[in-house]
């Protein structure tokens, strides 16, 4: 099995009033291609920190992190920014859509960041918005959309530039149960394919059944891994 993400012995500490606090204690993590992997665990266990490190937006103290075969610790800042732009798609808990842009323009942001003109990029994002059932809302501003609709726009934004890895932080936290399942169905349908990996941080147990693999974290360590067949890896 080949992996989109390989983390080995990743250690991360933060400065706090109490001194240096270690939040990741030598984490090993593999995220396979073609699967949706969920990183679960209680608040403060380090899953968002690990996700940020994998996404290349947070540095780490020691260890190795490879994404799509590239060692992100060895990249310069500029290379890492370009790598994120090309290789990663992001879905945030609070959607983080730009309030002044329409749904289509928001979905097109990664293409614009890559140099495409805004209106052309918005047109290019339309098929994906249609696929996510948002075609008729493409011209609406985020404030005119429900939470579930905004998250679908965010999914389109995460996928519009065909990324290799999609990272999602609590994608259903701001949604009700029905809305959350709808969003996960669409995320799974749109994002999971053989040449892409999807890494989801969540503690919403209602969506665990969408995962191909569940990685449990506790106190900055991997506590266990379950595959789709509920096979537990020690």
């Amino acid at each position: 099995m080949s992996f989109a993400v390989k983390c080995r012995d990743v250690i991360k500490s933060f400065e706090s009033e109490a001194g240096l606090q270690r939040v990741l204690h030598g984490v090993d993590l593999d995220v396979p291609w073609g699967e949706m992997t969920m990183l679960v665990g209680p608040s403060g266990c380090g899953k968002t920190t690990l996700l940020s490190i994998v996404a290349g937006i947070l540095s780490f103290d020691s260890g190795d992190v490879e994404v799509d075969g590239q060692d992100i610790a060895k990249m310069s800042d500029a290379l890492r920014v370009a790598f994120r732009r090309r290789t990663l798609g992001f879905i945030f808990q609070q959607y983080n859509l730009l309030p002044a842009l329409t749904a289509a323009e928001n979905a097109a942001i990664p293409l614009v960041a890559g140099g495409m003109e805004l209106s052309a990029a918005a047109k290019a994002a339309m098929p994906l918005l249609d696929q996510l059932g948002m075609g008729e809302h493409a011209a609406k501003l985020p404030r005119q959309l429900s939470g579930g609709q905004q998250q679908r726009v965010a999914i389109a934004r995460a996928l519009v530039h065909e990324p290799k890895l999609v990272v999602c932080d609590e994608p259903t936290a701001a949604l009700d149960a029905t809305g959350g399942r709808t969003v996960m169905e669409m995320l799974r349908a749109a994002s999971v394919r053989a040449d892409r990996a999807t890494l989801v941080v969540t503690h919403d147990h209602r969506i665990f059944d969408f995962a191909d693999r569940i990685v449990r974290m506790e106190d900055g360590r991997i506590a266990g891994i379950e595959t789709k067949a509920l096979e537990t890896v020690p």
Partner: protein
Amino acid sequence: MGKVALRMLFGDPGKYLGLVFGIAFATLLMAQQAGLFVGILGRTVSQIVDVQEADLWVMDPRVKYSDVTEPMTDTQLYRVRSVEGVAWALPFYRAMSTARSPDGILEQTLLLGVDDATLTGAPRKVLLGNIDDLRQPDAVAIDRAGFGRLWPNVPLDLGREVEINDRRVKVVAITEAGAPFTTAPVVVMRYSQALIVAQPRRSQLSYVIARAAPGHNAEDVAARIARDTGLQGLTRDGFVNKTMTYFLRNTGIPINFGITIALGFIVGAAIVGQTFFLFVVENLRQFGALKAIGVGNLAILRMVLLQAGVAAVTGYSIGIGLAAAFFEFVPRISIELRGLALPAEVAVGVAAAVLLIIAAASFASVRRVLVVDPAIVFRG
């Protein structure tokens, strides 16, 4: 990402208008006060500037500025004429005097006496009549504003009589003279006539106006006059600077206007700085998301600078437009405000001040954006 930056800017009309209003207000306040300051300062030298024919002014060494003269003997005129490099030299009289209209209206007037033969130094712009008629006995030219003060609500006409220092004179020409600092009516007579009308003193010659001969530098000739005659010889620009400097150092004008201009700058900077800073800070999360998605710091910097630049240009344009409208229309309402204008130097200076304000606001805001940790987008 430029379009995205502009959409972010215009997408919050309240904040955008607040930002533009702040810049426009600061621009208007600074431009209007600076324009008034320059205009009022210019009035202190308008009677020097009006005499375009002369490039040299000669006076008693004790004279500090143009309004207060120390009379010289008439023989000084001949001494100046004898200095090498002087093409011509003519007498020029200047004094305040009291005018009384037949209706009993009293006005303090600025009485100017110009050379009898050539009338050099008389205002060039004549609205009514002929300046050559000054050669008639007891003839005066009066400026348009002065006519309105002595004969309110009366259309401009010639032949009216007025008493100056109890001597009756007749208006033969209406001129457009530069407004004096006190906005007093400007009355022009022949030099010999002015000496008769004026209060008698032992010496009467206020100034000698002169011109450097071709091939001679005015500054050199002025220095030579001072050396050879013991008088004070100045070029026109030198006399303008000396007079302005006197007013700047000895009156409250620069302090009062300076305070208002500084207030405009400070208030503008505070409004613009705070509004723009808050605008950026409230969008920090969006900028953080853009950074996470892969928009580099340089692109973010360009976005913030574009937003600041557009707001600055819009606000400045509105503010400078309002200031220009003020200087265009207000002098039409009140003749006392004639000649006040918005000099290009003031417009450029205010643009520089606005640029400084917006640059400071951008710098403070951009710093927050550039150091923002993109990981904030993963913290609910």
